[in-house]
């Protein structure tokens, strides 16, 4: 019964001959699949390890303990207590004096300068903020911790040359491990000596980096924080949510439940699918040309950012909401219409509540996208250097991803550290949002 009568071997034998080869091919193919997954996972792990490895030290900051005497004649000579006066007063000399007190032997200009540079150039702002909060401090001798200048902070964290072991230093070790030539060093030998002296006096301590979580941007890495960007992100997302959710859901309800099948709705449908795949930077160009130029809205404002992100997330929300509406079985609608509800009543009373978890899930995912979006916001000027924490959606602000972008451009090693830390915070928020979406889906998942 062989089909190829002329040949010597039977099909069975032929099959057996190729079998080994075929199974080898099968194994190889499967190995490709596993390799592909492993590559993807390895990339993910590398990314996380890099970010966390670079960033976790940013949550700590070496600080110097200072006893600062705030002489009223320097700060508020008339004793007005007026915030205007207090905010413009000179705190630098008080800080300098406190530093000189720690190094009595440093008397010449050069030495004093080196001593001053040990602490953050922004230390006076730390004092100022304390005084602004509590004007009664004027005239007192206060004990504060101010951040160490970022170069020294990085040295102690072991992020840059030379390698200085804080604990060994504290115990009196003098060995500084220089691996770079003097020109390339971040701090000089003399400065290392001062640092060591300061540590041995017990004035330096590693503490939680609260500035990172409470400050806005700053030119001084040790005082730069993400709070300003976080608030900016919050305002932007609030605007986005307030606009995109009602608009998205309404559009989805109309398209899914009311829209007649005609050319126009076809166009809208194709249009929404296409919009979902338009590069985000194009939305930025739209925002720049229409919102800023045509309508004259303010640059750098979370309001405009929110508008642009609304247009960007709308397709996501509409598509998810329509899917959620589709999954509500027609029997529910028939039941409601059958007892004489109007179409809108049927939808608002029955269909929408059932579809709501799906819509909310889609909205959260859209919001998560919006939170991580950078490019369109660059176009509408949210890249400004913003020190102040924005107080309303109309104030100039930046957002977390843009802050990350800005910091990543800064050459200082301390900013690299802070970039990674900011990324960790951003990813934390994203994980929370996605977890909320997953929970929502699990909690309300319904099978018909």
């Amino acid at each position, binding site marked *: 019964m062989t089909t190829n009568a002329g040949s010597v071997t039977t099909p069975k034998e032929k099959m057996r001959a190729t079998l080994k080869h075929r199974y080898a*091919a099968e194994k190889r193919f499967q190995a490709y*699949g596993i390799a592909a997954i492993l590559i993807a996972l390895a*990339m993910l792990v590398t990314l996380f390890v890099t970010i966390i490895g670079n960033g976790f030290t940013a949550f700590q900051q070496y600080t110097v303990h200072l006893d600062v005497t705030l002489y009223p004649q320097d700060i508020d000579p008339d004793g007005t207590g007026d915030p205007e006066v207090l905010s413009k007063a000179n705190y630098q000399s008080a800080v300098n004096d406190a530093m000189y007190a720690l190094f009595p032997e440093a008397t010449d200009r050069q030495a004093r300068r080196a001593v001053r540079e040990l602490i953050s150039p922004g230390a006076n702002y730390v004092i100022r903020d304390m005084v602004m909060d509590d004007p009664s401090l004027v005239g007192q001798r206060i004990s504060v911790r101010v951040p160490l200048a970022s170069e020294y902070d990085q040295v102690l964290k072991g992020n840059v040359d030379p390698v200085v072991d804080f604990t060994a230093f504290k115990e009196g070790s003098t060995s500084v491990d220089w691996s770079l030539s003097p020109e390339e060093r971040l701090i000089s030998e003399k400065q290392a000596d001062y640092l060591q002296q300061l540590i041995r006096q017990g004035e330096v301590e590693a503490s939680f980096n609260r500035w990172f979580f409470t400050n806005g941007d700053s030119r001084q890495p040790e005082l730069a924080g993400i709070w300003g960007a976080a608030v900016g992100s919050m305002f932007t997302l609030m605007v986005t949510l307030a606009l995109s959710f009602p608009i998205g859901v309404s559009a989805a309800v*109309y398209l899914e439940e009311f829209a007649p099948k005609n050319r126009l709705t076809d*166009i809208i449908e194709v249009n929404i699918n296409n919009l979902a795949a338009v*590069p985000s930077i194009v939305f930025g160009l739209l925002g720049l040309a229409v919102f800023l130029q045509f309508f004259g809205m303010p640059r750098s404002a979370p309001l405009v950012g929110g508008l642009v992100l609304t247009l960007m997330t709308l397709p996501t929300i509409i598509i998810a909401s329509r899917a959620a509406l589709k999954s509500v079985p027609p029997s529910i609608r028939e039941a409601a219409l059958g007892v004489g509800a109007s179409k809108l009543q049927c939808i608002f009373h029955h269909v929408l509540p059932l579809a709501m978890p799906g819509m909310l899930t889609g909205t959260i995912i859209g919001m998560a996208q919006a939170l991580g979006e950078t490019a369109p916001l*660059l*176009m509408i000027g949210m890249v400004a250097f913003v020190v102040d924490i924005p107080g309303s959606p109309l104030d100039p602000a930046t957002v977390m991803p843009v802050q990350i*972008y800005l910091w990543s451009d800064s050459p200082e090693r301390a900013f690299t550290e802070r970039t990674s830390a900011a990324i960790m915070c951003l990813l934390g928020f*994203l994980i929370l949002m996605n977890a909320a979406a997953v929970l929502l889906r699990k909690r309300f998942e319904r099978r018909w």
Partner: protein
Amino acid sequence: MDTILVIVAIVLLAAAGFVMGRRRAVVRSGGVSRSLHSLPNYHGHFVALWSAVPALILLVLWLPLEPTLAMNAALDYFQQHIAEANNLETIRQSKLALLLGLSPDQTTIRLEDLAADQFGLLQTEIRNMAAGGASTGHAAFMQEVADVYSGYRETSYILMFVVCLALAGAGAGFAWTRIAPEMRARNHVERAITWFMILCSTVAILTTVGIVLSLLFEAMRFFAQIPVTDFIFGLHWSPQTAIREDQVGSTGAFGAVPLFAGTILISLIAMCVAVPVGLFSAIYMAEYADNRVRAVVKPILEILAGIPTVVYGFFAALTVAPFFRGVGESIGLDVSSESALAAGMVMGIMIIPFVSSLSDDVITAVPQSMREGSYGLGATKSETITRVILPAALPGVVGGILLAVSRAIGETMIVVMAAGLGANLTANPLEAVTTVTVQIVTLLVGDQEFDSPKTLAAFALGLVLFLMTLCLNIIALHVVRKYREQYE
């Protein structure tokens, strides 16, 4: 100005209208709610809508108009009362001279002669001073202008407040008189809601129209200065030098070919990473992995899709690029620290989940009967996949890859942070190239003058980018949809 106060007032009025409308409906029905056509609540909503909607529309129209009118009045005042000959000397000595670009021999100031940016600066200054900003270095009379401006705004605000509330009240009153048992309040309310929903649906279309019009409009202005052919076929891109030499048209510095080439090179590298990895992991997930593995690995891979692109950009610049550079050095190759390879590879990683989830969808959409037919003949799994499933799924996979390409072309942050700025026409992945998106960002971030070809070029590039991705998307979505229909 506290617009919010106006909005709150309108909303409060509408709420009051709701309560009153409801009560009137109940009263008119004589307490027998069956005699009403619509439930009392609908009557309430009817009144509330009539009160809030016209007032809010008026508010929305008023808001952008108001500052413009006030500014015109202030500028008028400036022209009439300040820009007089006897003030000229004072102006010349103040910061205003700089602002107005006053030349020493000028004897009159005519606002309409001012250049656009100076005019803008003057307006900003007036606005700042009206908002209570310090009037440093200005002649005192600038304060007068600012006062005129803020005076107008104040009057306008009060006027707006009164008119809006009056309109809200009138609307509510009108609706209130119409309430009667037989009035079809529900139908009116529902019609209003339906119109609102239709309005929302058109937002998507308006967005597209907005994109197309704004890009086209600005790009036309660009092409009025630079010939289209120079832009599309020119080999030399250096907008910065063109500005400095002030001879834009002739230098051909806006030749976008290097940008297109760079974009394609980086996208190609990205695809070389994303397609094999994404496709093979999708195949493994769909055909080999058991449920437990799938339940763990799939969400982990999807994390890659949720990571913001700025993070990838940082990763590329901080880790991957130096790594390639180091490897290159150790084998004697000169790798740029902004190599296309690093940017492309990281972009590829970003796109992996995109390719894999789309491929997963199309692979699982191939009917089980195809697999059975093949297994029934004694085919191994890999033979079934490569010879039956993949050929059957090919259109879908291709559609997915096209969508991925469109995403790679439009990706911005990774290339902004990890690719180069210099337009370099090369196919060598170890060198730095620049892309369309990088140039858009560089041209538009920072101080811009809106009429310079440098800024307008960004819109021309945006137009090209939009058209490219649009074509890819339309083709891809069409292919994928046809593919799905085939198996439904």
